[in-house]
């Protein structure tokens, strides 16, 4: 992941393709040492982590389901999904409840930092990776106070089927 930051600073990659032009707010959160950002409008709420009900025969990053005021919500541990080193559950572990394309899901992260407003020129396009790094869902890299924010398109991540969440309710028709 080291080359991620260096390539972001490379001036050659300033062509802004597929990056929103207006100012947008992102919720930033930590996964291990990395800091990520997602569109704040997709966030429904933030909760503390509570052990979900485990399910058998599901991918390891699906921790199970929890009861969110009567709704059964699957919990995805992004740390496992993004193959980060450790996935510990402690007092700072939080779950971001997202509402994406008609589906509610929770993602486990190592902690929520803040809400950052980024305008287009603060967002750099993602660098080219080798096939080893799965970067399909990354929209760009934001820079805030010298920190690098990996902006992910959560909608794409969820609807791509990569999370094995099944068909989205909207596409059932």
């Amino acid at each position, binding site marked *: 992941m080291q080359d991620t930051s260096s390539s972001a600073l490379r001036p050659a990659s300033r062509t802004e393709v597929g990056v929103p032009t207006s100012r947008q707010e992102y919720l930033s959160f930590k996964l291990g040492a990395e800091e990520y950002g997602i569109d704040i409008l997709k966030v429904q709420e933030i909760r503390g982590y509570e052990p*979900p*009900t*485990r*399910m*058998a*025969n*599901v991918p390891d990053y*699906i921790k*199970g*389901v*929890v*009861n969110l*005021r*009567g*709704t*059964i*919500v*699957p919990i995805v541990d992004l740390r496992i999904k993004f193959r980060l080193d450790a996935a510990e559950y402690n007092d700072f572990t939080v779950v971001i409840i997202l509402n994406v394309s008609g*589906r*509610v*899901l929770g993602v486990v992260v190592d902690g929520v930092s803040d809400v950052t407003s980024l305008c287009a020129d603060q967002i750099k396009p993602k660098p080219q990776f080798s096939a080893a790094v799965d970067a399909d869902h990354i929209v760009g890299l934001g820079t805030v106070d010298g920190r690098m924010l990996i902006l992910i398109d959560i909608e794409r991540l969820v609807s791509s089927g990569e999370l*094995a*969440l*099944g*068909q989205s*309710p909207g596409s*059932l*028709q």
Partner: protein
Amino acid sequence: MADTHLDSPKADAGIDLTQFYQVFFEEAGENLDRLEQLLLAIDLVTADDEVLNSIFRCAHSVKGGAATFGFGDVAQLTHQMETLLDKLRRHELEPTAAMVDVLLQAGDALRAQLLRHQGGGAAPACDTEDLQSALRSLADGQPAPASARPAQPATPQAVASPVPAAAPARAPGNEARGLELRVGPLEQPEQAESLADLFKEIADLGSFEPLDGGQDADGVRRFKVVTTSSDADLLELFSFHVAPDKLSLMPLGPGYGFHEGAPGAPESTEAEPEFGFFEGAPGAPGAASVASAASAPVAAAAGEAGGVAPVTPQRSAAAKPSAAAADASTLRVSVEKVDQLINLVGELVITQAMLAQTSSKLDAAVFQQMAAGLADLQRNTRDLQESVMSIRMIPMSVVFNRFPRMLRDLAAKLAKKVEFVTQGDSTELDKGLVEKITDPLTHLVRNSCDHGIELPAERLARGKSETGTITLAASHQGGSIVIEVRDDGKGLSRRKLLDKAREKGIDAPETLSDSEVWSLIFAPGFSTAEVVTDVSGRGVGMDVVKRNITGLGGTVEIESCEGFGMSVKVRLPLTLAIMDSMSVGIARETYILPLSSVVQSFSQSEQQMMTIGGSQGQVVRVRDEYLPVIDLEQVFEVPRNGALAPPSILVVVESGGMRMALRVDELLGQQQVVVKNLEANYCKVDFVSGATILGDGRVALILDVDSLVRRSRH
């Protein structure tokens, strides 16, 4: 409303059908709205197949309902629309603007016809002959005769107006009268408008409509009043707003210029004498006497009739209030609102449980009052939960009751003898599902009667009894609701289906399995009936059935045996259903078993365990039967964290006639659980049919016994 049908052509309308009229009118209204929207949005050059199919389905649904309830004129007109639409969707004709116009007019005429039926059929029948012939000639590929158009626009208005007049009709003893009110001359004619507000504020007063299009003539404004109050009362009331000497009341004259000078004049004058149809119309005396007699004798009769009891008083009550009042007795609330309520109550229950748990540690002597308060809270919460739950759950009998009459009419029309049997009437089903399952079921039942059951002579020739049987059965099975439509008719013919499929250009090799052949009938436009009738045979039914059920997340299975009948099983997921369940513990996890599938349970050590082919094939002997044992710990990969497994308990479950034993650690108890589906936010999980929320707020998975049994077979 019911009594006003006495003078309608369908005076013999079955008692049990009237209660569904309102539902039909609402549904038909929605369908017509949709039809109109689709027609208006249609792009004539590149008409989308999907849109044309949707339009066709709207008309088809209205027709089906109208035929069921005996509204012949509506069914007739929709039949003509359908013929045209059918050609459009088959691309035998290209849509033209003229067609859209005529179809829209037909939609308006349908609305008027429905409004007439809703108002009790007292208004003059709409003449749709011109429209029908226009539709026919369009369907034949000719331009619409020009004469068809101008006749129509007046009709809906003329028919629509008497209906509000019917609204205030109340107690039969105090009949509504049509009056003409003259106000003025006034300096400010607008003052008269305040009278209209009076009628809005006082619900029982009656109706109030401006005549002459609300324009004053020399400062005098005229209004049409339909009310049950006396002249003196009215004048007294009006004098709050307008000086009494400026007011005059007179009976509404026949043909009084209500629509004077309007294009629809001839028709509207015809409508006038009918105004106070509670006085003059032939049906009125009957209505009054029935309604007044309804109180005692009918109630007594209802008592004898047993199960009919709740229906009959309701009907006599419904006889008095008008269509408007019927609207008020039920409330259409969006399902989301109810769901939200249910979720909130669920939260409340959990909070209450938490409070109860915490308070149990307190010294009861000191916090006596609080303990009493908490006990009240517990009781109230439970009651609240039950009432809220009951909002959504309705028994299947509500759906089933629609069919006997429909089948009777249908059988008579087709000259067949059919007996209708229902099973599992009291199976409770979510309201949302009930609404959506009704149409598909109607199609299935009609199909069974039309295509399935043979003519009496044919049946006798085949050695069957003259009377065919159509069975509708509902049950909870393996975490789903299964509704089966079964008939003992001729069944599906493999040969015919394959031939028909090839004729339609569907790839259908001989090697298809039976069930694959049966499912051919779900292809759009597929019908094996030789003649297209207004019952069925257009091939629209089954693809709609399939689409609707798939839309609900359900499946349709067909079993058929040529010569002996067929069965269509509709399996629906439990999106929200209350289920009696048994909760079992495995290590530290809790799983829920549907109680309906549990046969018995016992301690494993008491019984003889045996293996077949090594430890993989464990069987247990129960009552001289060897049952396979499924270790849930293995199936669900339950972590033990090193703890030793306690002596197991075996729970014998049954599904689809197969039994097996599930090994669990302990039985935790029986309770009613609310079934939530996992698919809403996640996907189907193996061997799990849904989830529920336990008293402590945790989620527990509900086992799909059906698929567990199937797994053990393979």
